[in-house]
């Protein structure tokens, strides 16, 4: 567990007192947490608790009314999503958001979009630099295809793939970005036991081998408790508890939130 040495190094992500409301509905209400380097941080909570909204704030899709988000030492609130992505924030979506008409290969190559440096003219003429960079990118993408075991699907348009494979492709696209922080929104939702175990292994490998910190949202309590270093529990947009899986599980407020009787 990486929890012990946390205070010494600066956090990768620091969220302070973030609040977001939609026409009166408070989706997030005073949420604060930090993610340490190589930490596996989980966010859990009942339906509508605001987990996806937190991700949308982090990746720049929603702009919160209050609070600050510091990623790698820089304030990111108000930055457009593509700038935050270029800083190294990658995410997957609760409902797979792939580019459906493109192949697995093209979806992964798109993850590398901001790693390319060549421009439109070089693209039209396919001059040296465009060719060189595309080949280098392809080699990196092939590593990810290997890692996630996607070789069999390489040239298939993703819309034709089974749901579980699509989830894996989406993870691959996020990895292709070479992220400094990875946000996974319900990566095992709708998966069978075997697929869930595969995904859990991938998530652990990403953290352990690639050293990329991960923020994980999931309803699969067993998975979250097994994998996470620390857990944040949300209910109606408010933080209910924050601590190691064992601490959180013992917390009476958490039990109450999950049984429906919010404090």
């Amino acid at each position, binding site marked *: 567990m990486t929890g012990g040495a946390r205070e010494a190094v600066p956090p990768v992500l620091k969220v302070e007192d973030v609040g977001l409301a939609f026409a009166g509905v408070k989706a997030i209400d005073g949420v604060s947490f930090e993610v340490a380097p190589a930490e596996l941080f989980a966010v859990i909570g009942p339906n509508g608790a605001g987990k996806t909204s937190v991700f949308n704030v982090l990746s720049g*899709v929603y702009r919160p009314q209050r609070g600050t988000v510091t990623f790698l030492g820089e304030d990111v609130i108000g930055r457009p999503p593509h700038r935050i992505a270029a800083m190294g924030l990658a995410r997957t979506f609760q409902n797979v958001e792939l580019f459906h*008409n*493109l192949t697995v290969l093209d979806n992964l190559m798109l993850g590398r*979009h901001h790693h390319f440096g060549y421009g*439109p003219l070089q693209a039209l003429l396919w001059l040296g630099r465009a*060719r060189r960079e595309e*080949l280098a990118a392809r*080699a990196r993408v092939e590593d990810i295809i290997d890692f996630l075991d996607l070789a069999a699907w390489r040239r298939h348009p993703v819309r034709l793939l089974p749901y579980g494979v699509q989830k894996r492709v989406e993870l691959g696209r996020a990895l292709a970005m070479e992220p400094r922080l990875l946000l996974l929104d319900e990566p095992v939702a709708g998966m069978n036991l075997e697929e869930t175990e595969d995904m859990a292994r991938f998530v652990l490998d990403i953290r352990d081998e690639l050293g990329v910190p991960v923020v994980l949202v999931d309803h699969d309590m067993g998975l979250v408790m097994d994998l996470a270093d620390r857990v944040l529990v949300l209910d109606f947009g408010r933080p209910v508890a924050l601590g190691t899986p064992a601490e959180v599980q013992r917390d009476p407020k958490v039990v109450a939130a999950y049984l429906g009787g919010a404090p």
Partner: protein
Amino acid sequence: MTERTGQVGVRPGVRPDSGPGGPGAVRARRPKGRPLLYTAYAQDMALLDTRAKKAGLALLLGAAVLLSGLPDDLLVLLAAGYVAAIGAIGLNIVTGYAGQVSLGHAFFVAVGAYTAAAVSGDPGGRTLGFGITSMLVWLPAAGAAAALAGVLVAPLAARLRGLYLAIVTLGLVFLGEHVFKEWDHLTGGPGVGRPAAVPELFGFRFDADSALGTRAQSLYMLMLVLLVVFAVAARNLARSRIGRAFSAIRDRDIAAEVIGVPLTRYKTLAFAISSGYAGCAGALMYTVTGFFDPGSFNLLMSVQFIAMVLIGGVATVSGAIAGALFVTLLPRITQELPALLPFVSADTTQTPNVFQIQVALYGLLIVLFLVFEPRGLFGIWIRARAYWKSWPFSY
């Protein structure tokens, strides 16, 4: 991009190392009899990745060159088809790849046509002209002017989607029609028109009979070569980071932004490149007839370009070419109708006449293709290929 999804890739055996030799330094040969085994990514990512494709294209180009032996009136028609194909490839970039429906293509074609005509026009003539007849000047100028117009229009695309964008770009055509009709000094005015750009390259006039062939033959070969250049460039674009980003925006714009594609910049780029193609097509279009009228750049022209893309196949370069040839050659076929069907008149004052039938046919074909074969002629070709590949076990 979607053109290659049908085949099953075999794992490349050799990794191009990214060391000093650079990726792609490995030039591997494909073992005989294993057309789908790639031994280097460079091979896998090539435009023509199988021998069958190379042979097919060579055959097609050979046939196109041989066609230059056709009678002159047919050559002129085909040359016009090739130019239209350049325009259709352009529309396909913004509408097919990037998913931004534009009905304003005729406007950008007009910008290109007038830029080229003005640059190469006679300085002492009735209409505006700067007397620079070299294609090397007026063709890029036409492309650049139209691309600039595209950039100016693009902010609309950043704010509007689907039908709204279609309607606003339609407004552009009406606006252009009005401006071009009023601006006599540039356009010559409605019903009169002005001379088109002069197709001259290093002193050689393509619009005159020469030792190399008739006027029609020269123009035909010129347009064929230019079409090949523009088509290859578009294929390159499609397989590049930029083409991928366009498709990403079309398929899922939020996700595209979240993985790092700046939406506004790429929509602008799509409009710029697409309009640049339209501008070049416009510049070339009237070198064949030699003269053009401001009334040409109307809604029908935009609809014809949409028809070319939809009939040929969305988001494929070869489809846009096929669609353009189909739509250009269609009037030639409907012209024969009065001879075959006595109730169809060749006279525009009567109903039903050939022109009405033409317009109705475009509409009907668009609807039929959208309903039965959304991938257009390209889709039919894919199916035909699949049929022969699996023959005699077809279904």
